[in-house]
């Protein structure tokens, strides 16, 4: 999976790795918008450009095997990757595709990735990631989830 440098258009391969306990000291609300220390007991992953140590984004998830579902609890990009002046594009897409792969690996054709979002943002996730809205919950399942994985894996 790759992120794109928005200035020169160059693509960079990324690693998505579990967050280490020592990382939490560097995950300030100022740069990562939320209090990530509250997620210490959850499964939390960081996104880095291969070979770099700079964390460009974070996601915490909850696996719900009885529903063949992985729920995205909290997700963010780093401050410099927010808005029209962002340095790298596709960080969120890489995270969703990464979790989608995890869900397919675990649950096969029953796989589902979900998140909740404010109504004004929901349409964006439906348009960009082919998610469906049920009540307040956005989700992606088979067959759309396969298209999403292939898009971020092969590009």
């Amino acid at each position, binding site marked *: 999976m790759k992120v794109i440098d928005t200035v020169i258009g160059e693509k960079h391969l990324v690693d998505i790795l579990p967050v280490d306990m020592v990382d939490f000291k560097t995950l300030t609300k100022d740069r990562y918008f939320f209090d990530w220390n509250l997620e210490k007991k959850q499964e939390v992953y960081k996104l880095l450009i291969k070979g770099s140590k700079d964390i460009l984004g974070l996601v915490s998830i909850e696996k719900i095997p009885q529903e063949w579902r992985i729920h995205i609890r909290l997700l963010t990009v780093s401050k410099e990757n927010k808005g029209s002046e962002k340095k790298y594009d596709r960080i969120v897409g890489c995270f969703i595709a990464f979790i989608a792969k995890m869900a*397919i690996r675990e649950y096969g054709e029953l796989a589902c990735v979900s998140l909740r979002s404010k109504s004004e943002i929901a349409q964006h996730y439906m348009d960009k990631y082919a998610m469906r809205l049920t009540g307040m919950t956005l989700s992606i399942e*088979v067959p759309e989830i396969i298209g999403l994985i292939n898009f971020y894996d092969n590009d």
Partner: protein
Amino acid sequence: MTEDKNLMMDLEYGIDSRYKSGLESVSEATALMEARLRRMKMLSNDQITKARLLQLKLKMEEFINHPVYDNHNHFSNFLKFYIDSIYSKRSIFAKDINVDPVSLSQVINNHREPKDEFILKLMIHSEKVYKDVCSFNKKIWYQIYFNNKICEIMAKQEQWQPDIEKQVRISEVTKV
């Protein structure tokens, strides 16, 4: 423009999707599951097969990247999953790759090692099958096979090492 409004201008800066209460979580999970079950019934066999093949590929990649030897991560289990995802009968697969059904059964049940020719045929077959599913590196079958061998040998190290060690000596050592 306030900071909040700035954030809203970027729809992807972050999502706080945590449930505020157990009740909220249960209620949304129930509605979502009902909707999903309705959609699952609409899935075609082709869509289910593609999902299973992608699942297999991701499981094999996971084993290559993080080899853990257990009953699930065996070449024969991956092979079984592959065949059963595509074929209604294993004998049809045997015919498709010009292999004796009995030999195939022995490989699947770990009573026979797959020959090179068998793995080569499997590579060609899977390359064709995966063409319309996702990217697929056909050499993964060999990687699985050899990873299996390494894991098996190292898992049984305590059994073979004492006897083998007696047969090995170092008569000359080059000093650096």
